[in-house]
């Protein structure tokens, strides 16, 4: 583990600073950048030593070099530089798979089956039929892995140790799921809609990756079966030829290479619904997936409000007299952003940043604030997004066993020299 000593001392330094509330210890922090995907350099807790040492930049076919978390199944994170625009390029969009069997699908061979005990009739659609027989619609929406920022949890929790880049924002074009379901006819007893992709496990006994949504979410006008992303066909690694798009909900529900939709009258009980992707009951204010609530936990549902400063690195030096340019992106589950505020005094006072163009309530929203520097010394830069419902980012991590919903306020340490 080439970096373990450095990382350990850095962690102690950061922990010490966070606790002490003084900036005296900031000075030695200069050389923090340089390691691929370091979250310490971004003003967060660092990902585990082993993850930091093992990860590297690697380009999957059709992708630019992304931060490799694991090769098989492929899990690749988007580096921070691609979040300096509100739309994430297709070739830089993160890749997340649970199962290693990922077929190459030809558009002409693809079929989408619609069935289940709560539809009037079973149907199947080709890609051409989807494009010809339904109204095409677009939505700009953030797709964020439930476990984005899991690696920043302290204490660490097992799983894919994501930094900040298991997310992306794209213009998705496709057809409304509700229009597809209307053709099949949704019965009055419909409770959930179940989605399966073409990916599969290596072992027969491994549960296939199958997810369900509450029927009312499936029938929402923003829920799409999408076949285009940013004006291009979906990349293979992001679900070609068609995937589910569930704006506001975490990425686990956005089934890639979608091949089967079933409308059912009873809760879906497979491992990925009943055991995985769950949060402790009552810990978060996100909506409940009512038919799936258990005694102790419930499925993760929508994203929590969050932001990311993309213009600065911890440990950077700013020449006195030059402004600190704080720029970044903010997002929530679809209420839309009310404000992004920036603090340079450890949260005692907050200044409103200027929000960028509104690309829709499910989209990344840019923010920017220029802060003059008058005195030499250490500065902690923080950003805090608040949604139109008043939901805001947390100061302390809400720890949970699977490492979901990390929206702790970022703290970048700069030095004015």
């Amino acid at each position, binding site marked *: *583990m080439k970096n*373990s000593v450095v990382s350990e001392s850095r962690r102690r330094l950061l922990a010490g600073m966070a606790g002490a509330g003084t900036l005296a210890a900031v000075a030695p922090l200069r050389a923090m950048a340089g390691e691929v995907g370091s979250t310490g350099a971004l003003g967060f807790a660092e990902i*585990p*030593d*082993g*993850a930091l*040492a*093992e*990860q590297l930049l*690697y380009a*999957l*076919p059709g992708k630019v070099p992304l931060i*490799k*978390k*694991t*090769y*098989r*199944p*492929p899990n690749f994170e988007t580096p921070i530089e691609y979040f300096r625009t509100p739309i994430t390029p297709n070739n830089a969009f993160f890749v997340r798979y649970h199962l*290693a*069997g*990922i077929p190459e699908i030809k558009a002409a061979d693809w079929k989408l089956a619609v069935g289940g005990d709560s539809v009037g009739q079973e149907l199947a659609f080709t890609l051409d039929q989807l494009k010809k027989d339904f109204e095409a619609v677009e939505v700009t929406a953030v797709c964020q892995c439930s476990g984005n920022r899991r690696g920043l949890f302290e*204490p*660490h929790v*097992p*799983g*894919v*140790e994501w930094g900040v880049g298991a997310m992306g924002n794209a213009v998705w074009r496709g057809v409304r799921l509700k229009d597809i379901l209307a053709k099949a006819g949704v019965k009055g007893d419909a409770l959930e809609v179940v989605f*399966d*992709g*073409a*990916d*599969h*496990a*290596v*072992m*027969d*006994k*491994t*549960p*296939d990756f199958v997810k369900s949504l509450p029927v009312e979410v499936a029938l929402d006008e923003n829920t799409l079966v999408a076949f285009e992303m940013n004006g291009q066909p979906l990349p293979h690694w992001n679900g070609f030829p068609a995937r589910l798009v569930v704006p506001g909900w975490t990425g686990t529900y956005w089934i890639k290479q979608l*091949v*089967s939709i079933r409308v059912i009258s009873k809760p879906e009980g497979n*491992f990925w619904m009943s*055991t995985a992707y769950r949060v402790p009951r009552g810990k978060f204010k996100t909506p409940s997936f009512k038919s799936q609530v258990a005694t102790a936990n419930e499925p993760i549902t929508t994203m929590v409000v969050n932001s990311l400063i993309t213009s600065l690195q911890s440990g950077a030096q700013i020449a006195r007299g030059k402004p600190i340019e704080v720029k970044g992106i903010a997002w929530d589950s679809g209420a839309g952003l009310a404000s992004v505020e920036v603090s340079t005094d450890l949260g005692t006072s907050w200044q409103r940043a200027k929000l960028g163009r509104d690309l829709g309530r499910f989209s990344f929203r840019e923010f920017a604030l220029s802060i003059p520097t008058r005195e030499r010394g250490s500065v902690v830069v923080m950003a805090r997004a608040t949604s139109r419902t008043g939901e805001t980012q947390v100061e302390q991590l809400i720890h949970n066993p699977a490492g979901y919903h990390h929206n702790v306020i970022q703290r970048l340490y700069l030095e004015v020299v």
Partner: protein
Amino acid sequence: MKTARIPSLATAGVLAWALAGAATAQESKVVLKDAPGRDKAMQCVACHSVDYIQMNSAFLDKAGWTASANKMINAFGAPIAKEDVEPIVNYLVQNYGKPAAK
């Protein structure tokens, strides 16, 4: 989609590599530490690249690595023989475990 029908671990390993696509060659560069139990731990490659192990280090104690191994076997159906579980867990704790747990 359920399509794979895998009779044994040996063939599963071969198939998994075939399915992995372009990252396969890179994956062979991921090397687990050479220590007793490594051969048993290499059974993990039937389903996933072993960078999952480095990635989850070094913060799990014996209970943590035992829980991970059991999850692979009980939830994901990894065909690991009962007698192999302890050597695998010991290998992970010794080489990728939380420093205080060794």
